[in-house]
């Protein structure tokens, strides 16, 4: 029993059934000791008392023993649980480690599989730590020659970094300042995507669109920077040539058009030698088509400006009602000739917005002339202008409420041939023409809506379309108003 009690509880051996027999055995021993003491005692009362005391002690001892055994059993159960849990934790850890290794391997293989983009990772000071095959290919240096030995700024045109750092011409700029200039926008805004000039090992200069983002460690602390680059050299050169081509073509078209229209004007307005009706009619056709060509040249130039981000606005206070009225005036003759009725619904007090009057007029003209053009004889075109409000989520409402901002809604509805549902998403793409337009031989090149959308967007507005083939179309232009 002593040995049993001295043993650490957690090490109690055997199943509970075996240990359960220890309590009756101890009781028997204690009872025997009590009887011996009783028989050898000096007197009966004392012997009786002694026996009672012994019996009481034996009972207490037995109860204590029982408690200890129970505690030992509980501790054993806990030990087993802990052992099981420990084994489980070790297994979990191993699984997690394997998953981490697999994930790291996946990341490495993904990064290594990228051969058309450079992925360069640096530490916080710009020292290269990651250099994928795309970077090897783009910049002409193997990973072993770069990692931990070169900084990212070694591969950037220094003059660009110096300009970004605000240095004067010829001023000596420290490498750290160049690196700080490179990542400044990403540091301030969380990311930065723009063109930079990379210098390759063989001395070529590449125009590279570089996305710069901070890289964090497992505790969320910034550990460095990621630079993901796409070689845009050919694309940018193509854009430049396209821009140059459009400018050249537009110049070369405008100059002969100046002659055609100028001499036509001289002939048609010659009061000393008036034209016959037939001559006037023919020359009128020449003039109309020269004007059409001129509009096309203007549209091409405008589209090129939008594509290259050179669309500029001259903002002023503009009465949108006046613009709608002017568009209606412009379209009236053509609409009447086609048998299309045009009605306007304008707020009598007008509606002032901040914008470029010329460009807004162009956008409105495009919508109205399209509506007239796509509406068969006997149809109806309705121009409606009203004030509305927009929720933060963009939903339009007809009443003011907290959180809503005022907008001007200009809708141009027609009862024309409509646009198939599947084609409505492409309407604002340059040169796209709906199948209904082609089927009905409606003239046009597909730039008007692209231009209208670009003007709307440049004003912070939206342009939406609802259409049902054979029933008609409504374009809704929403422009923000000053609160």
């Amino acid at each position, binding site marked *: 029993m002593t040995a049993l009690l001295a043993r650490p509880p957690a090490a109690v051996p055997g199943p509970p059934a075996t240990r359960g027999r220890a309590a009756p055995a101890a009781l028997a021993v204690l009872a025997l000791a009590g009887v011996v003491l009783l028989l050898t005692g000096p007197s009966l009362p004392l012997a009786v008392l002694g026996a009672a005391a012994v019996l009481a002690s034996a009972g207490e001892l037995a109860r204590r023993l029982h408690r200890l055994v129970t505690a030992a059993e509980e501790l054993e159960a806990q030990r087993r649980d802990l052992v099981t849990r420990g084994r489980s934790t070790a297994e979990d850890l191993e699984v997690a480690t394997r998953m981490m290794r697999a994930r790291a391997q996946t990341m490495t293989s993904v990064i290594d599989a990228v051969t058309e983009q450079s992925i360069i990772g640096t530490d916080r000071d710009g020292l290269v730590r990651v250099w994928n095959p795309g970077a090897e290919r783009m910049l002409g240096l193997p990973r072993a020659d770069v990692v931990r030995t070169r900084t990212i700024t070694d591969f950037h045109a220094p003059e660009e970094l110096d300009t970004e750092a605000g240095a004067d011409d010829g001023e000596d700029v420290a490498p750290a300042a160049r690196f700080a200039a490179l990542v400044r926008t990403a540091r301030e805004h969380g990311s930065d995507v723009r063109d930079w000039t990379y210098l390759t090992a063989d001395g070529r200069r590449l125009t590279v669109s570089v996305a710069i983002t901070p890289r964090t460690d497992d505790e969320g602390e910034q550990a460095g920077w990621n630079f993901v680059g796409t070689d845009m050299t050919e694309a940018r050169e193509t854009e430049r040539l396209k821009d140059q081509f459009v400018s050249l073509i*537009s*110049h070369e078209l*405008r*100059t002969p*058009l*100046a*002659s*055609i*229209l*100028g*001499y036509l*004007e*001289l002939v048609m*307005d010659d009061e000393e030698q008036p034209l016959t009706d037939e001559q006037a009619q023919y020359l009128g056709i020449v003039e109309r088509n020269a004007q059409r060509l*001129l509009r096309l040249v*203007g549209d091409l*130039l405008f589209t090129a*400006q939008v594509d290259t981000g*050179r669309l*500029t606005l*001259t903002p002023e206070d503009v009465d949108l009602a006046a613009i709608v009225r002017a568009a209606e005036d412009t379209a009236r003759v053509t609409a009447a000739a086609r048998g299309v009725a045009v009605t306007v619904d304008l707020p009598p007090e007008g509606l002032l917005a901040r914008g470029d009057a010329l460009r807004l007029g162009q956008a409105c003209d495009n919508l109205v002339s399209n509506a007239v053009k796509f509406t068969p004889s006997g149809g109806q075109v309705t121009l409606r202008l009203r004030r509305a409000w927009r929720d933060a989520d963009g939903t339009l409402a007809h009443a003011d409420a907290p959180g809503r901002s005022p907008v001007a809604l200009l809708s141009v509805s027609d009862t024309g041939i409509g646009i198939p549902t599947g084609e409505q998403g492409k309407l604002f793409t340059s040169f796209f023409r709906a199948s209904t337009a082609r089927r009905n031989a409606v003239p046009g090149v597909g730039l008007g809506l692209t231009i209208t959308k670009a003007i709307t967007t440049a004003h912070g507005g939206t342009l939406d379309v609802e259409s049902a083939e054979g029933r008609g179309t409504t374009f809704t232009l929403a422009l923000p108003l000053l609160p």
Partner: protein
Amino acid sequence: MDASARVLVADDEEDIRLLVTLAVRRAGCSVVAAVADGAQALAAARVELPDLVVLDVSMPEATGLQVCAALRAEPGTAGCRVLLLSAGASPDDIARGLAAGADAYLAKPFTVAGLVAQVRLLTARDAA
């Protein structure tokens, strides 16, 4: 309008040169020279000291902008009125023309009536 206003015309396109000449005459002015490039325009301006120079922007030898700046830099021609004509019609094009010292800018294609009105306006100012 000053009936005696003297105008120099410079454009490398012969058809446009003639058209501008006709418009200048419709405006009641006389054409002292009609030349085809920037160098000739500058030389003719130094000799003729016209009241108005109508310059195409895109010309060989010297652009209309260069000629305009040169005219403004020389005391003898600094007072000439300059009207620029150009196929470039963007706000940037116009701003560059006016920055070079031009008094007015007309984008091609222009209307003859518009050109006549501009010539009258500039020569009338000159007379005033």
